[in-house]
């Protein structure tokens, strides 16, 4: 049995530290699958889920058919087993992230200590209740002993205590959190999965956008809206820059159509706050002062800022603002983007660019970033492969049997 720390400022929200077991299972264990299938059903059946789209997408991800499909991908005749105890430090401002992080590790076969965000979100309280209730049922007694969910402040000693017994740490929350947690030593064989500050962009084929019928354009732009606006353009996978693939006049025409359509959607579905409006003006002033390649700004009624660039500064993707602030660049040669692609680049969403063009762009340019290339609309679809990590394989070990 593994001793979990106790501390006045440490609260075990789910699970009993006195009966904790850190021993791993094989990935996609049958009981875990049964558990997730039932959790998914319960969540989908709960009327409250409907008002929380992020909880719904989590519930949808956990459904039986999806897990079975995922299991097939890892059915590779290699004997794998979970690493043991995984310590999750989840981000404060993405409510359902803790649940995904936990489920991915659970599927890999691990016991888990999940640190919940201190900020109260209805989604978290809702999910915690469901998870807790289900873990108390049969036949989940065993996995119940393998999982605790905890809340504490910024106590170093608690971070240190969990780090000291973790076979792996999953660190969300960006560079600052990673540097904080990395100060605490872990066992020699322990691994870290770090979700650092990452940024994303989108490539749109100008001619293809022009050719779209309005109804299809509406659908595409609505998917783009989800990519960009659901997390206020602040998620690591939200597009911050749109690259128009085509010539200048095509890009002009495609841009007018695209942004006009987005504007209509934004008006109906996004509430721009006063402070974000000021933030965007502030960012525009910074850009005006600092960037030499700024050709034009269009901002209409402030809902969408379009900052048009003649060339791409190295740090363009890290210039931060969110809330509907887009850099735009036009090129008929994708290779021109390659020099600015650093390891900070995560997701590339695309429309109207062929798989061959994208593959050739990535393979011939020796780029050190971009871990995901997905169609517009799938930027937020988190999965077992995320941010360049295969979570099942990274969070399990191989028992090489000959």
């Amino acid at each position: 049995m593994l001793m979990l720390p106790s501390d006045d400022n440490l609260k075990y929200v789910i699970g009993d530290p006195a009966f904790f077991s850190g021993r791993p299972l094989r990935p996609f264990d049958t009981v875990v699958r049964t558990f997730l299938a039932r959790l998914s059903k319960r969540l989908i059946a709960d009327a409250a889920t409907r008002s929380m789209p992020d909880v719904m997408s989590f519930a949808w991800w956990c459904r039986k058919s999806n897990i079975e499909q995922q299991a097939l991908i890892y059915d590779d005749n290699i004997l794998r087993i979970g690493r043991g105890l995984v310590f999750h430090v989840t981000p404060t401002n993405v409510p359902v992230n803790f649940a995904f992080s936990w489920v991915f590790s659970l599927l890999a076969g691990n016991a888990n200590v999940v640190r919940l965000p201190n900020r109260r979100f209805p989604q978290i309280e809702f999910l915690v209740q469901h998870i807790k209730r289900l873990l108390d049922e049969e036949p989940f007694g065993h996995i119940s002993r393998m999982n605790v969910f905890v809340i504490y402040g910024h106590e170093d000693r608690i971070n240190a205590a969990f780090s000291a017994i973790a076979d792996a740490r999953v660190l969300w929350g960006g560079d600052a959190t990673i540097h904080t947690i990395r100060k605490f030593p872990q066992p020699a064989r322990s691994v870290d999965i770090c979700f650092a500050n990452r940024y994303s962009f989108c490539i749109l084929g100008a001619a293809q956008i022009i050719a779209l019928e309005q109804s299809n354009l509406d659908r595409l732009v609505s998917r783009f809206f989800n990519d960009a606006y659901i997390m206020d353009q602040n998620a690591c996978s939200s597009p911050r820059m749109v690259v128009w693939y085509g010539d200048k006049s095509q890009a002009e025409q495609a841009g007018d159509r695209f942004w006009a359509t987005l504007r209509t959607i934004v008006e109906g579905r996004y509430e721009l706050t006063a402070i974000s409006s000021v933030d965007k003006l502030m960012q525009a002033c910074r850009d005006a002062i600092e960037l030499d390649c700024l050709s034009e700004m269009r901002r209409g009624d402030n809902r969408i800022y379009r900052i048009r660039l003649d060339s791409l500064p190295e740090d363009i993707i890290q210039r931060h603002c969110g809330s509907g602030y887009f850099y735009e660049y036009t090129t008929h040669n994708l290779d021109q983007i390659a020099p600015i692609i650093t390891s900070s680049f995560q997701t590339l969403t695309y429309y109207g660019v062929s798989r061959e063009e994208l593959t050739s762009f990535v393979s011939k340019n020796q780029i050190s970033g971009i871990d995901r290339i997905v169609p517009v609309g799938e930027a937020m679809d988190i999965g077992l492969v995320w941010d360049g990590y295969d979570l099942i394989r990274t969070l399990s070990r191989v028992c090489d049997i000959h």
Partner: protein
Amino acid sequence: MKTRTTVVVEELLATPPFGMESGEKRGLYAQELSDLTLHHYHCCPEYRRLSCLLGYTPDARMAVEEIPFIPVRLFKEYDLLSVGKQDIIKTMTSSGTSGQAVSRIYLDKTTAAYQTKALVRIVSSFIGNKRLPLLIVDSPSVIKSRALFSARGAGILGFSMLGRDATYMLDENNQIDFARLDAFLEKHRSSRILFFGFTFIIWEYLCQALRREGRRLEIDGILIHGGGWKQLTSIAVDNATFKKELRETCGIQSVCNYYGMVEQTGSIFMECSQGVLHASLYSDLIIRDPVTFSVLPVGQPGLVQLVSLLPSSYPGHSILTEDIGEILGEDDCPCGRKGRYFRIHGRVKNAEVRGCSDVDATQ
């Protein structure tokens, strides 16, 4: 050599600050703010770049509402000057808690002098031209460096010129120096007393301190205070409560709030007998829709944009604050002052940051 704008501003500083009707003021501002914008466009490289991006073209005459406005936060991130560094005689900084970025406002001799004159003109309209004995509700330690002024220090120095025998009421530890206070009151027994201080300091270190000590003062005085209501709003103290507290603890009947900021020092907005804030001849305000920035009419609350004719050494003549305010009317306040009068509702709400990176990871 004096520019045309300088001559105009100097004339205005010799004119009663609340005598001009809005129609005339609008015409004056259209002309003078355009000239001032052009001046900053030519003299401040950063301003030139951002004003162009915001749609300014130097050869076009613009209505006051069309002149670009820059967020006050910009002064926290950049040193913005429209004169040579060698001409700067004073650098003002906003008050900010430690670790927070502060605004840095660069003043040359001309702008500093304008600000001082404007302040005197405006305040005299409320307390008369006679210089009253002045009690500063603060500690002398606030004024440390003469070249680097915090908002608190600047306010104190500015107001010091409006009274005589300026005396600090608090010691280094923000405790009331009763010996000094009693001596001051004894010396000026026959006179009305002018009080000046920051809203929160007055509440905490004067009113509440007196209550704790179980002392009550009975002073024939007029108290002017500013600096913002943020800390008091959080403990549910409003203007009416504040006034009542001063009546009860100090016997002060006349309490006057002002609204102003270090980015436009001098041209403050003072509260009249009707309890509303007034724009003087030296500055004005425009209320904008918080989201779209379109200009809002009288009676609709929105973001406060401040324009002023005084700033020539730094491009602060048209700034967008993060305060929400509402114009209540113009030219017809029963107190008799012309121009716009308004109310401030508070700060805009901070954003609930969404996204993958923690905002409080290092706290």
